[in-house]
């Protein structure tokens, strides 16, 4: 397949458009990671389409030298669904934000996941509306003081991964703008998935919500505050890899390793677990005292892919009935002739 494929480099995926994000914005890192990963996927460049909604993050397509469609606020999943169903041969990626995908676009997001359309979704979660200059978003923490909530918000936030899992997601992962190797590896996993690959990327908006993820990403704390999930590996974390996670009744618990507790007692990560309740359980570690925030692929399972089902139905019916004949169709049912 790649026999005649040009050898791409990162450069091939860069456009001549000035990148119009604020200096220091986490979006740059994500752009760079995607531009690094695309050349490695063995796919002709013209097959890539990046679809986005509206937001800082949704400017993404302009900087990717692929086909790109900067649509309207919240609707990228629906536009991309139409495109993918019509053109299953294309590699359709979505770039979206926490406002775009989860506020105005929440419904399309959950329906895309439910249908398992073959789309890769990069959700840039900066916990703020960047483009409109700093209102709180559905992922902002309660009490957030922002432009529209000078006295603090009273909204409980979504847990992005829980929501996706509740909507029947088949692939759910999380990475961070500044963790480049992890991010690239995660993107590659997503690229390989059939069905909707949903990736939450924790992203810093240094203008309107600076340091939103610092408590996870700072060098000193990151190993204690996050856990990198790897399929088939036990859930170990900590700067000294001295903590682990195991089941305790209906819930998880964090245990120190040693003192009779070894990796054997821990949960071995199974991204392919048929029951999404497992991944859901992992997603609930976020923000729980003592628990790390999970990074990596929480869930990756096979399930019927929407556009496959659509195409297959067409194929079967054409196989059975033969390709439609317009003349016959027009004459279907009772007809009579007037001379």
């Amino acid at each position, binding site marked *: 397949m790649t026999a005649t494929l040009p050898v791409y480099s990162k450069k091939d995926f860069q456009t001549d458009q000035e990148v119009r994000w604020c200096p220091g914005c986490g979006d740059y890192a994500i752009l760079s990671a995607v531009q690094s990963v695309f050349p490695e996927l063995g796919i002709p460049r013209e097959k890539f389409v990046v679809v986005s909604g509206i937001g800082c993050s949704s400017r993404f397509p302009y900087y990717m030298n692929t*086909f790109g469609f900067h649509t309207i606020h919240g609707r990228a999943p629906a536009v991309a669904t139409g495109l993918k169903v019509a*053109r299953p041969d294309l590699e359709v990626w979505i770039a979206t934000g926490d406002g775009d995908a989860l506020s105005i676009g929440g419904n399309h997001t959950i329906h895309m996941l439910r249908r398992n359309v073959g789309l890769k979704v990069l959700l840039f979660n900066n916990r703020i509306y960047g483009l409109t200059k700093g209102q709180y978003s559905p992922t902002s923490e309660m009490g957030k003081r922002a432009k529209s909530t000078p006295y603090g918000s009273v909204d409980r936030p979504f847990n992005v991964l829980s929501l996706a899992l509740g909507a029947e997601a088949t692939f759910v992962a999380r990475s961070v703008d500044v963790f480049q190797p992890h991010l690239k590896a995660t993107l590659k996993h997503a690229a390989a998935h059939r069905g909707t690959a949903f990736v939450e990327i924790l992203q810093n908006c240094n203008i309107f919500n600076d340091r939103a993820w610092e408590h996870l990403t700072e060098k000193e704390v990151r190993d204690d505050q996050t856990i990198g999930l790897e399929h088939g590996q036990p859930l170990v974390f900590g700067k000294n890899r001295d903590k682990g996670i195991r089941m305790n009744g209906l819930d998880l618990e964090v245990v120190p390793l040693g003192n009779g507790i070894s990796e054997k007692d821990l949960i071995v990560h199974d991204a392919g677990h048929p029951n999404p309740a497992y991944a859901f359980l992992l997603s609930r570690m976020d923000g729980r005292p003592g628990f790390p925030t999970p990074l990596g692929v929480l869930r990756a399972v096979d399930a019927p892919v929407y556009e496959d089902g659509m195409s297959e139905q067409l194929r079967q019916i054409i196989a059975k009935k033969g390709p439609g004949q317009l003349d016959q169709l027009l004459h279907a049912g009772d007809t009579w002739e007037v001379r």
Partner: protein
Amino acid sequence: MATTEAPVRKREILEQAVIRFCGDSGDGMQITGSQFTNTAALFGNDLATFPDFPAEIRAPAGTLPGVSGFQVNFSSSDIYTPGDVVDVLIAMNPAALKMNIADLRPNGILIVNTDNFKEVDLKKAQIKVSPLEDHSLDGYRLFAVELTKLTRMALQELGLDAKSMDRCKNFFALGMCYWLYNRTMDATYKWLDDKFKGKPVLAEANKRAMRAGYAYCDATEAFQTSYEIPPAKLSPGVYRNMSGNTALALGFVAASQQAKLPLFLGSYPITPASDILHELSMFKEFGVVTFQAEDEIAAVTSAIGAAYGGSLALTTTSGPGMALKTEAIGLAIATELPLVICDIQRGGPSTGLPTKTEQADLLQALFGRNSEAPVPVLAASTPGDCFWVAVEACRIAVKYMVPVIVLSDGYLANGAEPWRIPTVDQLPKFPVTFRTEPEGFMPYARDPQTLARPWAVPGTAGLEHRIGGLEKQDVTGNVNYEPLNHEKMVRLRAAKVEAIVQDVPDLVPAGDPDGDLLLVGWGSTYGAITAALRAQREKGARIGHVHLRHLNPLPANMGEVMKRYKRVVVPEMNLGQLVWVLRAKYLVEAQGLNKVQGKPFMQHEIEAKIEEVLGEIR
């Protein structure tokens, strides 16, 4: 009732007749009417139908809101409307009688199922004294028939329960009508065999009921006369009976074949548009993809995605759904992608009268988007015309790279008429070629004649480019906020839509090419206006009629044609929307004739207006 020789009775030849079946929603009136229509069509009559049923939800049996009706006008000459007055009314219960009797002509035939006129039935219909007894029906030829009882008797050998037997009584009534108009029952036999493929006993039951109804008329002396309505002299060709929604569906399939593009429909169900989705979902052998979206916004945006990918893309809806699609239509305008949006208008505002017809979305279609966002707008005038409008809309969309709005309405959607089936050769061909040449490719370069930009679909090597809803630089398509570029692009988009006028044929008025009065119509008022025009011209009026298929851009000679008449009247099922456009554009003192009742115009209503205006001139 022994089988005897039928008594010899009169047989009268008529030019035309109007039957209305009415009863409870559960009485199968829509089926009965359709069967009669079909038989009349196969016989060669010209015809027009008007199904009229309650809002989607089922009302309690026997009540006024539960009444469902189906009217068919069939004729040996050209007809244009389902008829203003009814010659034969079949009323299955008191509620139906109450709601419909006013439309029966004096001395008209009234068939009533007396089994349903018990105390309790009258009460459900909020009637105190039975109309069968209070002489209120004296002016009609009343045939009081124990329809339920007679049907049960006819079916008793089949071993069905009472409920199943009673479900057949509409076929008893149908049989009576077949007798009355001397029709064969063959087509209905065939339909029943098809419909009850797995349940032959039900097919048989309905057949028996129908035969019993026929025999009842034959055997008893109920009717003194039966009628004959000879076939109409339609132009030669092969015909089928066609409703507006089916015609749209077929038109889109035809267009996709002629454009050599796969058809994609993104839709969310809504009355009265859902049937287009239902129909198209059956045509998978034509490569038609139907996507039932989560809402109207996803419906239209998925279609935009498919259009971007190179499909002939389509979305169908009615008023409230149309309102939801407006933001996305703006995106299609800005990205200059081809797209067809069908609005099957219904009564409003808001949820309004979901099953009733109206023409009040015209201004929404023309102006209902933020900023300067013009689109071509087409309207179909008869059920069969929906086919041709569908084809034309697609042709314009792909030729000009533009979203096109098609307006139909509840009356066209569900109404039917005989439709001459075109041969495939008679269809316009417009095979689409995508841009493939990278050399010199500019996403917003334009064809000088159509002002269309190239359609450059993803997957084409060397054409990688970005589009979106932000303002673009002329030619390059890059995001651009410069003042003069913006003005240029706003005017270019408008000019492109205006340029379509080159494909719009000049108007040729029906009737007098000049004179006292011009009727300007659009959409489903076509039949009533045409019929009124004929009748009034026969009385000597010097009047003409133009019916607009293209509502934007308007035909080039629109203004000139209006000047040829002393008065211009615009009949519309709204408070005056097209008339507003004509006045604004041509400064012509056009006046409206407006009816907003969820029902189509009657011929006489238009005639009355004509007479009024002509009276003023004299």
